[in-house]
């Protein structure tokens, strides 16, 4: 079960199929359709060398989404994972997100619960989507997982993540879901690239992109990619199909 770091009047505790999470308080939602955005960020010990760049990239991507014409139709949930999964904040409308909080998003240390982070993230999206659908909202989703290493601390497997994602689509609560895996690989390790490529296939991610330099320009590219991917997926809501891949 993820540890909860924030709760407020905009979210309510929800029991998911595998974990608990903070769901959006549906009685506060005023739009007819939402794109559920799940973002999970690696905070294992190896992230410490580029922690500030990563925090800044996520913060700027969120800030960029706040200014998007689709901002009122986005619900964002952010988690981070080291030894286990921690919820940074539950599903919130972007207007309720305080971007300054993202300065302290990750506090690197420990191992990499990569698979659990995926299962938690996608399952929370699926359960939240069901709640929205039951209340006559329409929804699609995007899940972005940022990691710099291989899984070494999970209860679940990559194939479990694939099944959770397949179940989410088959439930018909989501119009579409897009899964994106981001590898941060400043050491240009071919083993890591191969591992994450295999994870992409096993878990059913739609797209894998890799950062090969831990530089401000590389992370600026990442923040643009995240915000564009979210925006594109949200714009596709109502079309009956998901968005096309944004070029990294």
């Amino acid at each position, binding site marked *: 079960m993820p540890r909860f770091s924030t709760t407020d009047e905009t979210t309510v505790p929800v029991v998911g199929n595998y974990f608990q999470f903070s769901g959006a308080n*549906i*009685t*506060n*939602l005023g739009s007819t359709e939402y794109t559920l955005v799940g973002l999970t960020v690696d905070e294992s010990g190896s992230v410490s060398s580029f922690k500030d760049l990563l925090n800044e990239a996520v913060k700027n991507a969120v800030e960029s989404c706040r200014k998007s014409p689709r901002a009122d139709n986005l619900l964002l949930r952010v988690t981070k994972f080291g030894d286990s999964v921690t919820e940074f904040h539950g599903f919130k409308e972007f207007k309720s997100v305080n971007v300054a909080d993202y300065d302290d998003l990750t506090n690197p240390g420990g191992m990499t619960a990569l698979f659990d982070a995926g299962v938690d993230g996608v399952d929370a999206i699926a359960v939240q989507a069901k709640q929205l659908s039951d*209340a006559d*909202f329409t929804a699609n989703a995007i899940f972005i997982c940022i990691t710099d290493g291989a899984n070494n601390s999970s209860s679940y497997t990559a194939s479990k993540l694939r099944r959770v994602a397949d179940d989410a689509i088959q439930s018909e609560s989501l119009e579409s879901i897009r899964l994106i895996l981001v590898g941060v690989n400043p050491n240009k390790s071919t083993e890591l690239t191969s591992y994450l490529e295999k994870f992409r296939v096993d878990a059913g991610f739609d797209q894998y992109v890799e950062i090969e330099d831990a530089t401000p320009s590389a992370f600026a590219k990442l923040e643009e990619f995240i915000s564009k991917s979210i925006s594109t997926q949200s714009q596709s809501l109502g079309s009956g199909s998901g968005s096309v891949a944004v070029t990294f």
Partner: protein
Amino acid sequence: MPIITDSVFIKGSSHHICQDYAIHGDNHAIGSDGCSSSPHTDVGSRILCNTLSEKLKECGANTEVLRYAAYDAALCADKLGLPNECLDATLFGFHILEGQVISFISGDGYIYKRFRAGGKLSEELRAISFEPNMPFYPNYYTNLRRLKSHNETGVKATLKVDYPSSDLPSFSHTWEADEFCRYESDALGDLELLLMFSDGLGTFQLDKKDIEVNKVLESLTNIKSYSPGFLQRKVINGMKKDFVGTLTHWDDFSVVGLINV
């Protein structure tokens, strides 16, 4: 829980432009159904709704407010260089004022009310129609010749009242339809749900076969989430789930409403 108002309008399958319009504010909601055979009523229905919204803020709902709104709308249309006939449109809606909900309708349409008093639920549906199909438009107040002409054509208005959740018999009343504007007042405390519809409510079809108004109403009043946008969600998403098949409505459709739970 606060009172939540909402409104929605959708183009009918037989129309190229939606001539219905609807808006809502904190304490009111207004809908309008533009006449298909008059010019630019898509614009006229918008002018009427917005003009009436301003009038309600200015002087509240009273038995003259539709007439005042029609005068102002006529001035507005004239300034825009539009023919006066663009305002040939029904007007319906409500205004919440000092614990009362004053609902009004000029022209044809439907009024649905659900009351909950002492734990007991009751429903009422009023359908207002005109024979021949010449509803009274508030715009006639702005042109004495057209007002006189309408009053002399022998148009009959019929009010049919149903009680969907009870055994009470329905009844109807028909009368000469000159200057027809209906006003109703209900205590807000007992009123749980109020919905007011344009005549598009009666044009829904499932797989191209007509559906009874009561079936459509059953879906529309089954509100799943009592939060802002409740009507938009119901009409845009929820109704599709309530019916198996392709749901359409050939006429433009507008609805305004409030929930008070």
